[in-house]
């Protein structure tokens, strides 16, 4: 028995009032403590974060998420917006500035896996039936291509502007190179547990495992300090154990810092057409969906340390970044003994001579050659020779047919194209050639 004399009276602080979290732990658990002691900052990677590009479902810009991740010494972070890759370019650019790795993914709605959790029938605010969403992360370039094609496929299927949803057949067709995480409240396993219990959740997990392979499917656990969520987590751990699938921790991040929960609440009201006072349980129950540090997450998952360790493993498996998009322009057939770069150089030299070879314009020839040389070097570096040769071929065809040819954009404004008598939309723009690249 504790010494009652040491107890503090109500109203006096018994612990630090600003402590940010407490793990759902048993008082008898000492194992968690030992793991916490050894937890370093970089041992947790947030792999499930949505930005404000998940319209009215996320409250922070991609840059804010990256900046916060950098503040927390997170070596990498993944962005998974709802049914799209809208935020990835800004996310990638910000990550380069902050020096952390930006993993790319998307939360994809899937038909055929039941419907998302909905509010209990007795609550006044109900929402329309929606398919569940799960997180797909690009492990490789092929994965990125598949994810892009998957989104295009189901978006194009909609007759009007709509979110759309992938079918299980779509998932199977575009599955390679992707790692699947099963999501939180919005995910298919949460829906399956609610509608059919553990057996349905197992069936759903098996279905996903057959699509992505057992090594590429992770049972996602989120802990926002809610009882019902913890009840689901226990069931999911059971499902993962039964099927031999790995579990992974994530925080289902919807905003960078705790304070931004207020913004998300306002977005929720806008999305549902209600006031803050009338929103009730449509709003989030607490402010736990922010980016948490490795220590916080380790404390939360003290009883399941492998869930934290798996974030690091998955992050290492996600090799793809937007640095290596891997797009190659088509090859242009060139005569034997020529490369595309050498063939292009000759064609450009011909054009320069035609434009500036006349005695009256000899004064500009050297300047033009210097500019062209600079541009050809850049083209060779970027591997754009094939593209410029196609443009040259088109110009040549049009000139033969007597068509007026005009171009726009940084390539059309180049000295290379000008040498071929392509009319740029901005004639003075030479100095801006490919400056956006």
């Amino acid at each position, binding site marked *: 028995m*504790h010494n009652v004399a040491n*107890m503090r009276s109500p109203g006096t602080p*018994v612990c630090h*009032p600003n*402590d940010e979290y*407490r793990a759902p732990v048993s*008082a008898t658990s000492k194992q968690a403590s030992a793991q916490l002691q050894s937890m370093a900052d970089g041992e947790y990677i947030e792999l499930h974060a949505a930005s404000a590009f998940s319209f009215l479902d996320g409250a922070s810009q991609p840059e804010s998420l990256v900046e916060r991740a950098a503040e927390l010494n997170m070596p990498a972070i993944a962005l998974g917006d709802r049914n799209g890759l809208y935020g990835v370019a800004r996310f990638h650019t910000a990550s380069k500035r902050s020096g952390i790795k930006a993993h790319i993914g998307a939360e994809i709605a899937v038909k055929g896996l039941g419907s998302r959790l909905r509010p209990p029938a007795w609550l*006044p605010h109900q929402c329309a039936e929606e398919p569940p969403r799960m997180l797909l992360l690009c492990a490789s370039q092929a994965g990125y291509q598949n994810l892009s094609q998957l989104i295009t496929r189901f978006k194009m299927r909609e007759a009007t502007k709509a979110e759309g949803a992938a079918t299980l057949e779509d998932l199977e067709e575009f599955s390679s190179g992707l790692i699947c995480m099963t999501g939180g409240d919005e995910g298919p396993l949460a829906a399956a547990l609610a509608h059919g219990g553990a057996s349905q959740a197992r069936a759903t997990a098996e279905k996903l495992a057959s699509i992505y392979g057992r090594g590429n499917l992770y049972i996602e656990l989120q802990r926002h300090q809610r009882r019902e969520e913890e009840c689901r987590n226990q069931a999911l751990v059971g499902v993962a154990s039964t099927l031999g699938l790995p579990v992974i921790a994530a925080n289902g991040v919807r905003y960078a810092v705790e304070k931004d929960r207020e913004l998300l609440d306002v977005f929720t009201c806008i999305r549902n057409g209600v006031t803050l006072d009338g929103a009730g349980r449509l709003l989030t129950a607490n402010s736990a969906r922010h980016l948490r540090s490795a220590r916080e997450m380790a404390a939360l998952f003290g009883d399941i340390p492998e869930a934290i360790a798996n974030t690091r493993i998955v992050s290492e498996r996600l090799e793809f970044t937007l640095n290596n998009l891997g797009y190659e322009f088509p090859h242009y057939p060139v005569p034997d003994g020529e490369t595309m770069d050498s063939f292009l150089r000759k064609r450009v030299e011909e054009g320069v001579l035609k434009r500036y070879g006349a005695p009256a314009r000899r004064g500009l020839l050297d300047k033009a050659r210097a500019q062209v040389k600079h541009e050809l070097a850049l083209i060779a570096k970027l591997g754009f020779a094939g593209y410029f040769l196609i443009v040259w071929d088109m110009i040549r065809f049009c000139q033969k047919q007597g068509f007026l040819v005009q171009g726009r954009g940084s390539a059309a404004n180049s000295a290379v194209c000008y040498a071929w008598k392509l009319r740029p939309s901005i004639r003075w723009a030479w100095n801006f050639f490919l400056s956006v690249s």
Partner: protein
Amino acid sequence: MMYAAVYAAQFPLQALLRLRGDLKSKPVVVMEGRATQETVCALNGQARLRGAALGMTRLEVESMNGLVLLARSAEGEAAARAVFLECAAQFSPRIEEASRGTACALVLDITGTERLFGPAQTLAERLRAALAAAGFRASIAVSANYHAARMKAAATRGITVIPEGGEAAALEKLPLATLELAEEHAETFALWGMRTLGELAAAPETELVTRLGAQASDWRQLARGAAEHAFQSIEPALSLQEFFEFDTPVEQMESLLFMGARMIDCLVARAAGRALALVSLTVDMKLEGGRMQRLALRPAVASMDRKFLLKLLQLEIGAHPPEAAVVALTIAAEAGQSSKVQLGLFAPQTPEPSRLDVTLARLKALVGEERVGSPVLEDTHHAGCFRMQGFAVDGKASEQDREPARMALRRMRPPLPIWVVLSSIVAAKDTTRIEHSTMTPAAFRDAVNSFEITAAYGPWRSSGCWWAGGAWDEEEWDVLATRCDGTFVACLLMRDRMRNQWRLEAYYD
């Protein structure tokens, strides 16, 4: 065709007296106009016997002993007119308004009602009795001619049934004033020595038209009971409302209830006339100083029991007494189908709805309205929030939830303040940083007992209402604890993170 004309003379007076039976035997005059220029607009027979007359000033009538002076009430007349119309509507759906001056007059198309109400004489008697029950004295005339019925009702007292073809005879003794002629024409007829409708009817039509124009032909037709009329039926909407303005502001509840009882009687009778019951009552009290106070009575089932409704009114006024003396009282009722509950042979007996209502009203008066009813969870993440909604028995067997049995939570209201000891498991390598440590409750005590916690699960956090004054940020712990006497409890501890206060919120049963 057959028409029944109903004529209520001195309507401003009747509107005021119908709820004031105590004044019916007294000489009463009704005054209208601005304060210094009031004149008599209606009076009863007793007042007339004492020398009062229409148009007299306040000074003149005040000089007569024993006269009761009342102020004309437009709202009261409107409410009385609605009641008058409703009484008439019980006998015919086709009614035309024929009011003139301060009288209220209606003409009913009673064609084809013999099988419902009997011959014209019987109908007229029943109609007069219905009006009398509502507090009106009216004369009734029945005729196949619209105008004959209208003029006869206005000019005579009691009931007159004019046989078909006998209109001219029935009207012949009526004064020419019945036609409401312009002063100029009335003088002309007076010069000619014509004073009754019979004399006008006997005059040659051509000669009359030659001297007085085409309108003289219409007058003659009216006098002969042969004028035609295009009936324009009004469609009275059911508006169950009674209004009463007190002579002096009333403070005693008894006076309010006395008048309220009369008004409820009228409302119940009017609703009953349409086979309806009262679903709700709205009582608007105009207070001294111009403020309004509203009370609402909504019995569990629609009722026609005046005693029960009056009891509810008494309890409601008792629970919400007027904040100042009451100047005027308006009771509006919503009518609905009277409740019919099919009782099941094996269904458990439920309390009689009216008695249940009275009991609930008594409880509300005793403990406050917001503390009686059924608790309903609020739509919020804030634990334990609920509101009370009116308790009602729907008569249906309740469907049991098929959910598996769950652990019950017995909330402490109010929660019990407790003292807590935390055990800290330091997580950070840097032990000077305590914000990343897991601190769990290890023991607690209330004012009486001490408890040692053997297992704690949590914290479960909720926060919200950050945009308003009621912001909260709380964490809950489910704990298993042993009391110092060795007994075992499972309870829920709550920490208010904004004030850093601990409470024992509930026990798990």
